């Protein structure tokens, strides 16, 4: 039982990161129908910048976190301005390729700045792990789960209670109609990139003390986060959060009980099964899928 709980906790931790990456995918996908495969790099940038500010420059914790989030947001902004906006005919394949190329450039920059070593810093709070029915849960794990929950609530409030959030949702449903009602679609697209970059940064900052962070972690995170988004139904925020946690937990159980190498295949196999049999995701409905532009 305690072993099972231990796996469950580690699954929840990594699942929280997948959930955040999945959410980031959805924010951009909803505003632009672009799949941003550089999403994983935002997580890495967040974690590594946090190390840079807090460990290398010795800035106070909160300031470093804020700076790391802002800088990552800036990178999201630059990415949109320089590589997404100039493309007139937003062909699906071209956009996927551009985001892949951006992720290669970001990885190059990260390697140039940080090298190939993994980095870590102290957990947010010092203290012994908490014992729950014989399983040990690190305090940082609670931080990760707490921060993820907070982000999800904030996202929910943003998209449902604020004018800006509602405008972004409108762009997702129909950009032309949104434009007619006076919504600045270009600005919404830009905001979506900044937001999902910041979201990735938050995830990176929270998880680095547990999993360490190195420059080439991005692609795998993007793939897993994407599995989470597909699982919950592309374009559905809540679905991708649940999907992220399910994938994280299944991964950690597979690594624990079956074979550690098989864990990377789990998310992909689940994703393929869902794509083939329920492309709308487990929580998605058929109509949602039909509404999406391909």
């Amino acid at each position: 039982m305690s072993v099972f709980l231990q796996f469950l906790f580690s699954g929840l931790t990594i699942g929280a990161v997948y959930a955040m990456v999945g959410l980031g995918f959805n924010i951009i996908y909803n505003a632009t129908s672009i799949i941003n495969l550089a999403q994983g790099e935002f997580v890495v940038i967040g974690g590594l910048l946090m190390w840079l500010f807090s460990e290398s420059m010795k800035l106070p914790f909160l300031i470093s976190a804020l700076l790391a989030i802002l800088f990552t947001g800036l990178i999201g902004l630059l990415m949109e301005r320089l590589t997404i906006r100039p493309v007139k005919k937003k062909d699906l394949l071209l956009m996927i390729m551009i985001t892949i190329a951006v992720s290669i450039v970001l990885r190059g920059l990260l390697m140039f700045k940080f090298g190939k070593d993994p980095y870590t810093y102290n957990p947010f709070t010092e203290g012994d792990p908490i014992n729950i029915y014989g399983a040990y849960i690190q305090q940082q794990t609670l931080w990760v789960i707490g921060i993820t929950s907070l982000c999800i609530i904030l996202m929910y409030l943003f998209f449902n209670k604020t004018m800006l959030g509602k405008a972004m949702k409108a762009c997702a449903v129909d950009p032309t109609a949104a434009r007619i009602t006076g919504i600045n679609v270009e600005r919404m697209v830009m905001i979506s990139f900044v937001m999902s970059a910041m979201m990735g940064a938050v995830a990176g900052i929270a998880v680095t003390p547990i999993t360490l962070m190195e420059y080439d972690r991005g692609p795998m995170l993007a793939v897993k986060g994407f599995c989470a988004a597909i699982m919950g139904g592309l374009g559905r925020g809540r679905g991708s959060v649940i999907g992220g946690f399910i994938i994280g937990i299944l991964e950690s159980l597979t690594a624990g009980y079956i074979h550690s190498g098989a864990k990377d295949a789990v998310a992909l196999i689940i994703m393929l099964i869902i794509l083939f049999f329920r492309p709308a995701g487990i929580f998605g409905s058929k109509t949602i899928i039909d509404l999406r532009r391909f």
Partner: protein
Amino acid sequence: MQITNRRIFLAFFTLVLVFPFFLEGSYALSIATFAGINSLIAIGLCILMGYAGQVSLGQAGFYGIGAYVSAILSINFGLPVVLSFFMAAAASAISAVVLAIPALRLKGHYLAVATLGFGEIIYVIINEWGPGGPSGFGDIPKFNLFGYVFNTPLSYYFLIWITLMLVMAFSINLINSRFGRALRSMHDSEIASNAMGVDVPTLKIKVFVLSAVYAAFGGAFYAHYVTFISPSSFSLFQSVLVLMMVVVGGITSLWGAIAGAIIITLLPEILREFKEYDILVYGLILISSLLFFNKGLVPIIIERLKKGYKGT
């Protein structure tokens, strides 16, 4: 073959035959050989994407199946290399059918991601359960035919490029045949081509199989050339590279696929002097070519030539 295509074909073929005599050293020859192997995979993807309009981000999966199956069969089961080549192609074709049947319903992003997932699963499998695991395995026999072993760089260069020219001739004829016209009609509108009597699902499966077989042959050629393979050559990055080749060259042109493959293969060599910055420069070149030449090089050059021709 159309007359223009035949002319380009003959000119290119001559170039291929004469080219090695202007090269110095076996290193340049081996780069040229890799360019040929990559062209083979890129042509397959070009038919799949440019003509049939289906996206694949998992070509490295088929490439890996080709390399691993052929290498394992020839080492562990002592099969003649030629036979293991065709077994590898068959294995890849079967996996393509298995992937294509459920993927038939998927389009756009969903198809892209499903194929990406397929490629990654193959990568995880060969990484975990392939011989040698992540570090790979060696001692793969060189390609041989009727007792002749292709063990010099020059002989392998000719083997690859002559095979490639045969494949190219086959592909050009294929896309100008009934099959190719059906592919293009499917690209424009599945419903319309269905109404015209094209069996869309079967056609999709066929074209997936075709591109998988090309990739598998590429993989087998690669394995029996370098004689050592490891999973890292068949990762997602490889799929992306093949995609880049097709897009950089021009997605609707088979010649573009070859041009793209040559450029993408040469790029790391040219960038070698940037040392550790190479990945950065590489990414920047890719982004700028995607942003500014997103139709692909060959179509742009053809357009320019036509304009110039009209002007005079």
